[in-house]
C-alpha cells in the first residue's frame, strides 16, 4: 500500500511540474498560460521520441531515445536529445548535410526556404514538409522491449525452478506462474479450442496473455521505465489482433468457410442474406478485439490523469484529498481491469481459433 501511495505521489509530482511545458504546445514561452488538461493527457497517451520523466524549474528532464530514420541518403541515427526537448519544429538537427525538425512528435525534413521557420503549411493547415521514414525506438517501442526482457527473465527463472524441484512441483517463481498457465490451459484453451487441438495454440495464447498483462501492468506504474501507454496504443493492439486474424484464417477448415458463405440448414434466401453479414464478421471480430483493448487501457489512463488534473482545473489544494482518493480507487479497479482485459483478449482469440477448427456433424 505504501508503494502504491508513493507511486501516486510520484504521478502528482510529475503532473505538477509538467503542467507548464504541456500547456505550451505551440512553443510559446508564456508560463502563465492556462493548464490544458486535454493537451497533458494526450501527451501522455501518445507516443514520443523521448521518455519525459519530469520538469525541474521549467527545464525538462527526459531519457533520450535513439532516432532511426531512413532518409534519401540512407540510414541516419542520432539521439533524441539533439532536439533539446523541442517539439514545435524550432530546433534543427544537422546530420551530414541533412536537416531535421521534430513537430508534434513527427520528424520532418527542415524547410530552409522560410528563414527561421522550418515548418511550412499547406492551405488546409497541415504540415507540407517532406518526411523521412521513421523507424525510431520511441517510448512505446522502448517500453515493449523492456516488457519482452522482463517476460524472458521471468519465464527463464520459472523454467530453472522446475529443474531444481522434486517431482516437478512448483517452487519459487513457479508458484506464481504455474497457476496462471494452468488457468489459461484449463479455463481458456481446453473449453474454447477442444482437447484435440489445444496444445498447438497454447504457446500463442500464453504469449498473448502474459504479454498483454505485463504491458497493462507496466502502464499502471507511474514512474520512469514504466508508465508508457503501450497497450493503449492502437498500433500495438492492431498487430495482436492481426495475428489472431491471420491464425484464424489460415487454420480454418472447410466447415468454417461453409458456415460463412453457405450456412447449412437454412433456406436459400436466408443463406444469401447471411453470407455478407458472416463475411463482414470475419473482420469485425478482430477489429472489436483491437478496439476493446485499446479503449479499455486508454480510458484507464485518461480517467486516472483526469482525476489528478481536477486539482489543476479547479486550482484548489483542498480538492487534492478527494482527487487522490478517487485516483487510488480507480487505480485499484484498474489492477483488476488490466488482468480481465488480458484474459478476455486471450479468451476471445481462443474462441475465434476454436470456431475456425471446430468439426461439425451434419
Amino acid at each position, binding site marked *: 500500500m505504501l508503494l502504491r501511495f508513493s507511486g501516486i505521489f510520484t504521478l502528482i509530482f510529475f503532473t505538477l511540474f509538467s503542467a507548464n511545458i504541456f500547456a505550451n504546445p505551440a512553443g510559446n514561452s508564456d508560463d502563465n498560460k492556462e493548464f490544458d488538461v486535454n493537451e497533458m493527457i*494526450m501527451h501522455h*497517451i*501518445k*507516443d514520443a521520441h523521448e521518455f519525459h520523466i519530469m520538469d525541474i524549474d521549467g527545464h525538462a528532464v527526459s531519457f533520450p531515445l535513439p532516432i532511426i530514420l531512413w532518409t534519401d541518403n540512407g540510414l541516419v541515427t542520432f539521439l533524441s536529445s539533439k532536439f533539446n526537448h523541442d517539439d514545435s519544429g524550432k530546433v534543427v538537427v544537422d546530420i551530414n548535410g541533412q536537416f531535421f525538425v521534430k513537430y*508534434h512528435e513527427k520528424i520532418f525534413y527542415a524547410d530552409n526556404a522560410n528563414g527561421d521557420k522550418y515548418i511550412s503549411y499547406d492551405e*488546409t*493547415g*497541415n504540415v507540407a514538409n517532406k518526411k523521412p521514414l521513421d523507424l525510431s525506438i520511441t517510448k512505446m517501442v522502448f517500453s515493449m522491449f523492456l516488457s519482452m526482457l522482463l517476460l524472458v527473465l521471468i519465464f527463464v527463472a520459472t523454467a530453472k525452478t522446475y529443474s531444481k524441484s522434486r517431482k516437478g512441483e512448483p517452487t519459487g517463481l513457479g508458484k506464481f506462474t504455474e497457476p496462471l498457465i494452468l488457468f489459461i490451459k484449463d479455463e481458456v484453451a481446453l473449453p474454447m479450442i477442444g482437447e484435440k487441438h489445444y496444445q498447438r495454440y497454447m504457446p500463442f495464447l500464453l504469449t498473448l496473455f502474459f504479454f498483454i498483462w505485463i504491458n497493462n501492468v507496466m502502464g499502471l506504474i507511474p514512474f520512469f521505465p514504466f508508465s508508457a501507454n503501450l497497450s493503449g*496504443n*492502437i*498500433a500495438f493492439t492492431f498487430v495482436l489482433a492481426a495475428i489472431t486474424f491471420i491464425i484464424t484464417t489460415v487454420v480454418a477448415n472447410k466447415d468454417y468457410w461453409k458456415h460463412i458463405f453457405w450456412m447449412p440448414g437454412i433456406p436459400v434466401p436466408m443463406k444469401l442474406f447471411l453470407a455478407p453479414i458472416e463475411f463482414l464478421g470475419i473482420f469485425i471480430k478482430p477489429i472489436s478485439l483491437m*478496439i*476493446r483493448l*485499446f*479503449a*479499455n487501457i*486508454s*480510458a484507464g489512463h*485518461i480517467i486516472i490523469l483526469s482525476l489528478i488534473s481536477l486539482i489543476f482545473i479547479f486550482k484548489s489544494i483542498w480538492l487534492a484529498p478527494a482527487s487522490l482518493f478517487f485516483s487510488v480507487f480507480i487505480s485499484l479497479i484498474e489492477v*483488476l*481491469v488490466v488482468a*480481465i*482485459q488480458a*484474459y*478476455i483478449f486471450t*479468451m476471445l482469440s481462443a474462441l475465434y481459433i476454436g470456431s475456425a477448427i471446430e468439426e461439425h456433424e451434419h
Partner: protein
Amino acid sequence: MSLIIFLQETAVNYGAFAAIGAGLAAIGAGIGIGQIGGSAMDAMARQPEMQGKLQGSAIVLIAFVEAVALFAVVVSLIK
C-alpha cells in the same frame, strides 16, 4: 493513434455533443452492468454453492459491457 490526432486537428469542435454521447454510453453501460449484477445476485441467492463461478463470469460479462461503453467514449474522444 495518428488517425485520432489527425481528426482532432481537422474536425470542428463538437465537444458538447461528445460529452452527451459519453453520457448516453454511460447510461447504457449502467443498465447493462445493473442487469448483470442483479441476475448474478439472484443466481447466487438461489445457489450459494455456485458463488465463485458466478462471480467470475459476472466480472467478465461486466468487462464486456464496459468495453461497449468505452467504444462510445473513444468515438466521442475522436469527436
